[in-house]
């Protein structure tokens, strides 16, 4: 299972005032708020944590079919920061693993259920994608093969990702 979230940093500056009174308190746990206040660039930390929550929620929603809006229920931890940021997001009894790429233009996070799956995620073009009765997208191509995909669109960017191990169709 997979989820992803892209944030266009130009778009987020137009759409959201994260410094607005109450905004941070509604979304982030006390520990996450500490990460933001201690960050060199608080804006990037806000959207890094937000994209982790969004990407993890997509996996949670796919797994449980539960639809809810409670950002504080998705509890982020940052495990390592190198070229990419690796993290985990806890939601109820579930833990999801995330990997985020931050560029000056955007922040893109992928989330999976098993840590090892982070290496199996690839970006694909938005083609042959259909949605099931719950509005959850999957990739359908050649014969009767279907495959989980996650789509995220924000501002100038659209990212579609899938797990390579889920099917062999992408190797063809």
């Amino acid at each position, binding site marked *: 299972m997979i989820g992803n979230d892209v944030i266009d940093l130009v778009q*987020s500056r137009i*759409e*959201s*005032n994260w410094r*607005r*009174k*109450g*905004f941070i308190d*509604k*979304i982030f746990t006390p520990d996450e708020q500490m990460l933001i206040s201690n960050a060199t660039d608080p804006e990037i930390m806000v959207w890094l944590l*937000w994209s982790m929550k*969004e990407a993890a929620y997509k996996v949670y929603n796919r797994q449980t079919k539960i*639809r*809810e*809006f*409670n*950002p*504080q*229920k998705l509890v982020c931890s940052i495990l390592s920061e190198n070229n990419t940021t690796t993290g985990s997001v806890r939601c109820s009894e579930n833990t999801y693993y995330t990997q985020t790429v931050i560029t000056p233009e955007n922040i893109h996070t992928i989330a999976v259920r098993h840590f090892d799956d982070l290496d199996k995620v690839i970006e694909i073009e938005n083609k042959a994608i259909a949605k099931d009765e719950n*509005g959850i997208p999957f990739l359908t191509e050649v014969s009767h093969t279907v495959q989980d995909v996650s789509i995220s669109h*924000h501002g100038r960017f659209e990212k579609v990702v899938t797990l390579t191990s889920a099917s062999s169709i992408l190797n063809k």
Partner: protein
Amino acid sequence: MPVSYLKNFNTNTMNKEELIAKLKLIIKPYTTNIEAYDNLTEETDFINDLSINSANLVDIILDIEETFDVVIDNTDMERMLDVKTAVEIIETKLAQK
């Protein structure tokens, strides 16, 4: 809406129609789907129908708190995905005042 009405605007004695009208004004700046906004009903879903991004859903909740002078906790926020539920939650909060 006549000016005199706005002057005497009291969120504690609002009927449902007034409440939805007030909510609709709050939602307006955040929606990107004008057609769905113009045809808004109780069944309208903030994300699926009005294409409101989830970060802006936080703004809507903060605006509701400020406009109606109520506090929306996480348990209420969790369900606040459509007009109907938002109205229910605001009505409950106003009745508790």
